[in-house]
């Protein structure tokens, strides 16, 4: 963020909290996670590990809460708006929730970074520039979803003993100690998609860029796409479920539609819409 940038886009920075972020974006990458389809099988998480050079930190450090799980498959035993917790068994199974960076339009992490290592790209992505990060860790403190992970050690030293390191993805860097990192919506894939499109002299089409989690999901519970692209599957889903960006509370014509955004009321304006889990009750 150059000074010029701040001054010129100051109104934008202020606006973020009112309208749904900047709509003069080139793209607005967004996602839909259908909790009715999600089986909690964890394929997305491992896919993320292999795509994004995530280090495995081992039992002890993982137990200490120093792991690097960008996409974490959460599991809850209670069902707040259905009840039945007093039953003898978990009769309706578990509630799974894949949680990756919500790419908020009014991201709380961005404002507090002292060196602007995290900022919003013209693609509507919440970027993290690793080599600019000085590790004040304020962003992670200020993320209501706790979706930012810190390199507490030089994990790369032990995580990829020869020849495991040959699997590392050259399209993004390997992070060293003292750097904050998080889900990037597989920005390297988006970049590739845009380059290819440019090479072929066309616009980026829906499906050109697919995040690793979305691509590997066995039930196709995750849909990834450009929310500014009218014909994109993801846009249709948002429309269908009458969920809009830039709102702290969705006023739906049909109250029964499933779409919702996690902790939407905080006005961070996340770009991931979740669809209610469904059970026979």
């Amino acid at each position, binding site marked *: *963020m*150059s*000074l*010029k940038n*701040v001054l010129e886009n100051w109104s934008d*920075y202020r606006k973020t909290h009112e309208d749904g972020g900047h709509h003069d974006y080139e793209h607005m990458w967004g996602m839909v996670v259908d909790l009715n389809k999600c089986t909690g099988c964890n394929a997305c998480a491992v896919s993320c590990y292999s795509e994004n050079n995530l280090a495995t930190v081992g039992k002890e*450090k993982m137990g*200490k*809460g*120093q*792991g690097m799980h960008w996409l*974490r498959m*959460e599991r*809850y035993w209670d069902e707040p708006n259905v009840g039945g917790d007093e039953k003898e068994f978990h009769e309706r199974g578990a509630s799974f929730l894949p*949680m990756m960076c919500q790419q908020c339009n009014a991201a*709380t992490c961005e*404002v*507090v*970074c*002292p*060196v*602007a290592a995290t*900022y919003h790209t013209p693609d509507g992505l919440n970027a993290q520039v690793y080599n*600019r*990060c*000085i*590790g*004040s*860790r*304020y962003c*992670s*403190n*200020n993320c*209501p*979803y*706790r979706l930012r*992970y*810190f*390199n*507490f*050690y*030089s994990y790369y030293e032990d995580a990829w003993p020869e020849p495991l390191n040959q699997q590392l993805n050259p399209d993004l860097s390997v992070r060293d*100690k*003292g*750097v*904050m990192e998080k889900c990037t919506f597989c920005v390297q894939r988006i970049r590739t998609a845009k380059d290819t499109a440019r090479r072929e002299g066309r616009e980026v089409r829906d499906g050109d860029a697919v995040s690793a989690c979305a691509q590997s999901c066995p039930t196709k519970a995750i849909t990834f796409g450009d929310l500014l692209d009218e014909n994109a599957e993801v846009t249709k889903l948002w429309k269908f479920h009458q969920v809009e960006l830039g709102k702290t509370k969705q006023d739906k014509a049909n109250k029964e539609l499933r779409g919702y955004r996690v*902790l939407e009321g*905080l006005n*961070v304006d996340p770009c991931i819409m979740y669809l209610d889990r469904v059970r026979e009750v």
Partner: protein
Amino acid sequence: MQTKDINENIAWAKINTDVLRSMENPRMGYWIAVVACLLMVSCAVMAEIYQYQVGMGPGNLNWPHMWDLYIATFVFWIGMSHSGTLLSAILHIIGADWRKPIYRFAEAMTTFSLMTAGLFPIIHLGRVWNMYWVLPYVSDRGIWPNFRSPLIWDAFAITTYLTSSALFLFIGMIPDLAICRDNARGWRQKLYTVLSMGWQGDDRQWRNFRKIYLLMACFLIPLAVSVHSIVSADFAMSIMPGWHITSFPPYFVAGALYSGCAAIITLFIILRYFFRFDEYMTIPILEKTCKLTFAIAMVWSYLTLIEFASVWYGHDPVAKEALVSRFVGPYSPFFWLMLFCGIIVPFALAVERFRRHLPTMFVVSILLNLGMWLERWMIVTPTLATSYYPFAFDVMWPSMVQWAIVFGSFGWFGLLFLIFVKVFPCVSMYEVKEMVFHRRQHNSPEIAKQFHRRASDRQAGDEQPSTGGA
């Protein structure tokens, strides 16, 4: 029972000799203290080197506990720094002259605690070697820090406060440095010659001196208040329950003055005991300080309760949760201890018998500061332990690495202070003389009359009640 702030019959020469004596030939106790401090510091240094090599992991920092003791202690030291400004600037402006014998070391405390506090944001960085990136320096990359981040405001605020308070300390010392110069030999003389900047104590110098001193005082007061408000912004500007609280700026400022005063009492007693400053750091002055502390303590307690109340009646479920978890959660023992030290203990200050009993006051003041340190910790950690996101709930206890560095910071502060008391007069001689003089003229009208006449007309050669030189 001593009732006067100071004995006005005390000879000015004696004042000089007493104070200067305190600066000379350190005794055994002094060296022991120095060694102790050095040891503490070396602990911290080793810990920091380890951390620098390995990363932030060994401190037990984790997800979601990204901040812990470092930031808490940082806030603590910043708070400590406010006392000096309070005594030297605020009391100076409202003309409470009992401050005069004790403001000097209070001010030194300000500078040194700032120098300690400043270390912590650096220590807590994941990549210390890039810390200069927070400064808006011109680079050919054309990139700048993020001016929206409270951490940047911190950087500015603290550096400003440090420079100005150091300057204030120095300016206030000039006349005394002149005295030292006149009485010192060897390297000391050279040093003081340079530092006293050719102070002769003549009329012009005194006038300018008064002007600038007043000016600095006026400048420092809003600065001090703003600094801790900005520090509070680190928390208040975030959206975390238990941090995002409107009343934080005043709350922090009150807390700062509180811990500062407590620290003054501690040092007051120490100095009085070791340097035999009984005639200058008198019980009545201690009592006044205690009363002041008590008043601030009450303000702070009130703000604390207000904070709880506003959260409780605010009906934000998450914030409420965070509050409740402070009372009953895993960290609750420390929280209750904090409340005890911060709200109950100060009532000892309201009892005259305690106020006049040095050992008691010593313990009390330590307890108060413990409370204030805990307060900072209890702001930082419980919030991170339970905030918006259940999946990230976690209880974390800091490791030796963190403790060592926190521990060492006290050694560092102590070291600086020990050096100070041997190199500079920790009691302001000329102001004590002033104070004595004022008391005298207050008591005997003829002196007053004589003084007033003298003050009104300006004839060269008139003998001025010289405070400098002597």
